[in-house]
């Protein structure tokens, strides 16, 4: 009976979901991509994934132990960071570099700023960019079927790309980025579970498509467009990293602005930058803009007119 008489302040309707459940959903949604990556690239990919997850969880545990903070590895966010980081690495990367990237992602990008919910930048992408700048050689060395070669994104200029292969993922690239199909399966799982909504990825992909048509130099060439959408880390970034709760805006209009920023920046980096890939930089750069985006898109509270607000 006492349950019926409970008095508390709002919110009165509570969901059972907490951080660890959400993170578990994300891990489940990443499983198709992960399994495909292991099948595609072999046992070395599995090793890297295991190493990244272990070192992320371990460094979070040790850091919290060292500074006397509450142990938070139970919320699985470190495991998700490790998994996402591993999916963003080429399977040939030396193990010590993967460990270093994981430690950087967790300790510098996440824990030093206050842990889950306080990080201003996606930890997995922070780790990836750290590795990309530090070890440009090994981070851009891609092998497929034991043969070193360019990723589809780098060879797009030559025109010889097989979009079906790119959709399924039978190409060179990082462990998790090659198969657009598997990523889409995971994204549908996340959307059905209500973990992410379509606004950010939708606006991102739409803006980027428009950018490709306008500035890509191929006009309305669908092959070129599909190759750019399925190539590189765009799908993985759009659905799994741009939608990170901590580093994306919460206001409805802010999400749209964030998506537009991502699309335009990715386009600029891919077509006018030095490197073939631009998704990581676009996402972490937009992460930095999130506080500003949220500031200018605060929704008007019900009953308050614009004049009153501006007079404040």
């Amino acid at each position, binding site marked *: 009976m006492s349950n019926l008489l409970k008095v508390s302040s709002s919110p009165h309707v509570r969901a059972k979901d907490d951080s660890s459940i959400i993170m578990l959903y994300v891990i489940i949604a990443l499983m198709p991509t992960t399994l495909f990556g292991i099948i595609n690239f072999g046992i070395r990919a599995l090793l890297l994934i295991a190493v990244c997850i272990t070192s992320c969880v371990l460094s979070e545990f040790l850091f919290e132990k060292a500074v006397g903070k509450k142990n938070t590895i139970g919320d699985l966010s470190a495991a998700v960071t490790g998994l996402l980081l591993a999916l963003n690495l080429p399977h040939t990367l030396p193990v010590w570099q993967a460990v*270093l990237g994981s430690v950087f992602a967790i300790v510098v990008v996440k824990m030093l700023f206050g842990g889950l919910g306080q990080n201003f930048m996606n930890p997995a992408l922070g780790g990836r960019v750290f590795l990309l*700048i530090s070890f440009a050689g090994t981070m851009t060395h891609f092998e497929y079927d034991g043969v070193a070669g360019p990723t589809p994104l780098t060879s797009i200029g030559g025109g010889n790309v097989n979009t079906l292969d790119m959709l399924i993922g039978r190409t060179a690239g990082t462990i998790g980025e090659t198969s657009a199909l598997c990523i889409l399966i995971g994204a549908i799982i996340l959307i059905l579970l209500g973990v992410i909504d379509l606004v950010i990825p939708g606006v991102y992909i739409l803006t980027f498509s428009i950018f490709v048509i306008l500035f890509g130099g191929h006009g309305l060439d669908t092959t070129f467009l599909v190759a750019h959408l399925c190539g590189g880390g765009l799908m993985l970034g759009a659905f799994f990293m741009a939608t990170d709760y901590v580093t994306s805006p919460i206001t409805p209009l802010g999400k749209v602005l964030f998506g537009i920023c991502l699309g335009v920046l990715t386009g600029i980096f891919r077509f006018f930058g030095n490197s073939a890939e631009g998704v990581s930089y676009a996402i972490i750069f937009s992460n930095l803009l999130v506080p500003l985006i949220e500031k200018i898109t605060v929704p008007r509270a019900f009953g308050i007119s614009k004049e009153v607000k501006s007079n404040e």
Partner: protein
Amino acid sequence: MNKNLERVYNGLWKENPTFVLMLGMCPTLAVTTSAINGIGMGLSTTVVLVLSNMLISALRNIIPDRVRMPAFIVVVASFVTIVQFLMEGFTPSLYESLGIYIPLIVVNCIILGRAESYASKNPVIPSMFDGIGMGLGFTVGLTLIGIVREILANGSIFGAVIAPLNDYHITLFGLAPGAFFVLGCLVAIMNVVRRNMEAKGKPLPAVQGCLGGDCSGCSLSSACTGKSLVHKADEVPPVDPKDVAKPQAVPTETKQTANAKNTEDVEKSGSDSSYADDIAGKEEK
């Protein structure tokens, strides 16, 4: 402690320009890609700092207050030009690698800061030792950052290759972000050491916002209310951490009241007795 030695100690540890005062960050972050660059930059700054401190101190009664900044800059720029030509002649490789940052020593805020806050108010000899202390503190800071960055980015130390590190070069530490990471880590280590020393009963003077409690050297001195004009410019006694916590509460008779800019301050100084009791109670413990 001997006053001159105290100045050197002050620059090296107590008010280390790199790790405590956080001055001169531009050369600190830009040139410390290797240990030899750090030491070269630090030493050339030291030379300029010592000479300009001495000359400005000698001229301190001649330079009119209104034009002191242009006068200081002319003095510093002269010495920087001399140092620049000497380096170009005798250490061409170092000159090449430091590049634009040698002429930029002219506007290094450590040099102008020491001229403004110390040399222009003190005799020549203490000013010289102040320059030596600050300059060496800067050199040590830059060299430490340079050593760490060189080991991590190039796997070498002072140009000597460390063979086991051949396959483990982290390019990031040779770039600007790496400089920030290394500086941040070294400052953190320094703070830990300082805190441990304080815990062992050797209270180090905490830097009091502006110039280590030495408000007499501050150009904002007349407008600032958070000061205690009890210290003479030439000797800065160690500031007790308790004073830092309550800068207003130092029960020093009339000066404090005279400085009070508004009623709030008067009220505070009116209740000095209770603060004095607090402090007395703490000191007994």
